[in-house]
């Protein structure tokens, strides 16, 4: 059978592509870890003194210095830390007197669901809005979407949080004005505490994604395969939702990937507003307390979180775009 033009040249395959991306992920993470370590090592002054205060007893200072391995050369300390990261031993936080690994685990149990909920909400808002806006360009929904897009990206997410607390929590009391009861208190109460923060995070995201969705749909509506679907007997609505939208999701997911780091950064602010015990507040309080061990590890974790989520988004492509699968 003749090898005519059009047969896919994506013979390299998705698995190989993903593997390469994963290796790059690890390499980047390694580079980032080095940078973080170097930055932390550059903190002026004696870390032990910084953490315990200058009035601490010399013996205590010496003991802490030894514990931190400060008497060892730079590279050795770096490798030591890396080894610890890989084995799960991240040292102890002196502020909380808990192993850092445990601390981070507890905090991730808040930040990850929060980020996930925010992503879901942003898609739930932006995709329908963008599709409906594109279905009737310059119509009322399109105008609304344009307005939403412009305002949504201009408004600070932590201010949205404050407004939500003011307007919803304090006025109606459906959601708490802050705090997190913990997952042990039950799935629904815990989720309830995440709703308003997730909305605050989701709105700027949704604003960006609405525009992307609208553009993608408008471009796709004119494509030939949509005409084929109509020629089969598909109504305009059917063609829109069953043919255009699944293809439009590809650029939407692309943009979502690009926004991941912005989203994670947003959790720092929003967690602060709602007093959620997440990674963001951990980073912030560790900084305030000069708990350098925690700061260092949390920074690495943030990087890993962002890169990991980016990688997950990349893997998602293989699911939504069959051309990338084989």
């Amino acid at each position, binding site marked *: *059978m*003749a*090898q*005519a*033009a*059009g*047969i*896919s040249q*994506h013979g390299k395959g998705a698995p190989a592509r993903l593997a390469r991306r994963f290796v790059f992920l690890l390499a980047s993470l390694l580079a980032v870890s080095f940078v973080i370590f170097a930055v932390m090592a550059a903190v002026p002054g004696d870390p032990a003194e910084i953490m315990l205060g200058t009035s601490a007893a010399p013996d205590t200072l010496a003991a802490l210095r030894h514990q931190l391995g400060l008497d060892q050369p730079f590279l050795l300390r770096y490798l030591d830390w890396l080894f610890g990261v890989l084995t799960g031993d991240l040292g102890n936080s002196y502020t909380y007197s808990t192993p850092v690994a445990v601390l981070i685990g507890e905090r991730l149990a808040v930040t990850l669901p929060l980020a996930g909920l925010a992503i879901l909400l942003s898609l739930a808002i932006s995709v329908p809005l963008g599709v409906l806006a594109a279905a009737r360009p310059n119509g009322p929904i399109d105008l609304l979407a344009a307005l939403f897009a412009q305002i949504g990206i201009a408004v600070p997410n932590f201010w949205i949080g404050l407004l939500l607390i003011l307007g919803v929590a304090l006025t109606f009391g459906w959601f708490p004005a802050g705090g997190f009861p913990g997952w042990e208190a039950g799935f629904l109460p815990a989720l309830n505490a995440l709703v308003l923060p997730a909305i605050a995070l989701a709105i700027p995201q949704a604003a960006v994604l609405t525009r992307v969705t609208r553009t993608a749909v408008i471009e796709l509506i004119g*494509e*030939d*395969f949509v*005409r*084929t*679907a*109509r*020629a*089969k*007997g*598909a*109504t*305009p609505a*059917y063609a829109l939702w069953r*043919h255009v939208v*699944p*293809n439009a999701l590809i650029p939407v997911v692309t943009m979502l990937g690009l926004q991941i780091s912005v989203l994670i950064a947003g959790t720092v602010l929003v967690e602060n507003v709602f007093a959620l015990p997440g990674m963001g507040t951990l980073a912030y309080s560790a900084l305030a307390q000069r708990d350098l061990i925690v700061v260092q590890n949390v920074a690495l974790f943030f990087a890993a979180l962002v890169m990991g989520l980016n990688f997950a988004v990349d893997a998602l492509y293989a699911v*939504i*775009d*069959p*051309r990338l699968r*084989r």
Partner: protein
Amino acid sequence: MMLEIEGLTVGFKTRKGREEVLHGIDLSLSQGETLGVIGESGSGKSMLALATIGLLPRGASPSGSIRLFGDDLLLLSERQMSAIRGAKIGMIFQEPMTALNPAMTVGSQIAEALHLHREISRSQARGEALRLMEMVRIARAPDRLNSYPHELSGGERQRVGIAIALALKPALLIADEPTTALDVTVQAEILDILDQLVRQLGIGLMLISHDFGVIARMADRVTVMQAGRVMETGTTEGVIRRPQHAYTRKLLSSLPRRVRAGLGDPS
């Protein structure tokens, strides 16, 4: 008479005012007959096809009448037209490379044509899709059911297009330049399949092309179009042997002499 088009005029709202692309087209097609529509680019032949199936671009305003089994299609609502498209009228387009949804398997796209008009189970539709793929002579059809369009060649994609268009055995099939975008060796095969199926299923075919060779091969009658108007209509043999209109003569004269002789042109 299955299809009767009378006084079809299609105009567009442009920035400069109103632009007319079809001027009072008259055309007819009987069941089981193949009508060739020939013209150069800009003749309006594609617009004619789109107007018949009701897929004119936005901003287009058609007038006149397009009667299919007596019903004027131009008077029908969008919902009514959606019921007719696929079931009573099928269409094949020029560009097979972009005619299929890249995110759906070809099998499911063929099955979809069935699901849109009939209450049919998924496995039944799948079985029917397989049968249709074999009907258009796609090699290794059972494997290909789950293939995505980008894994198929241009010729194979066009066959899928044919399978989709014929899935419900429509009375009228419109083929807009079905082989123009294909390699020469593949063109003959596609035309063969089309010819055979149309005869076998007794389908009325409106075959649009700029190529007299294609028309001569398959059409019983031919309509010549230029700049949105019908110049001449008649039996294929008649028009080729005794062209009445200057434009037709011009079209024919641009063919190499040997081809013309093969078509029966005595000049």
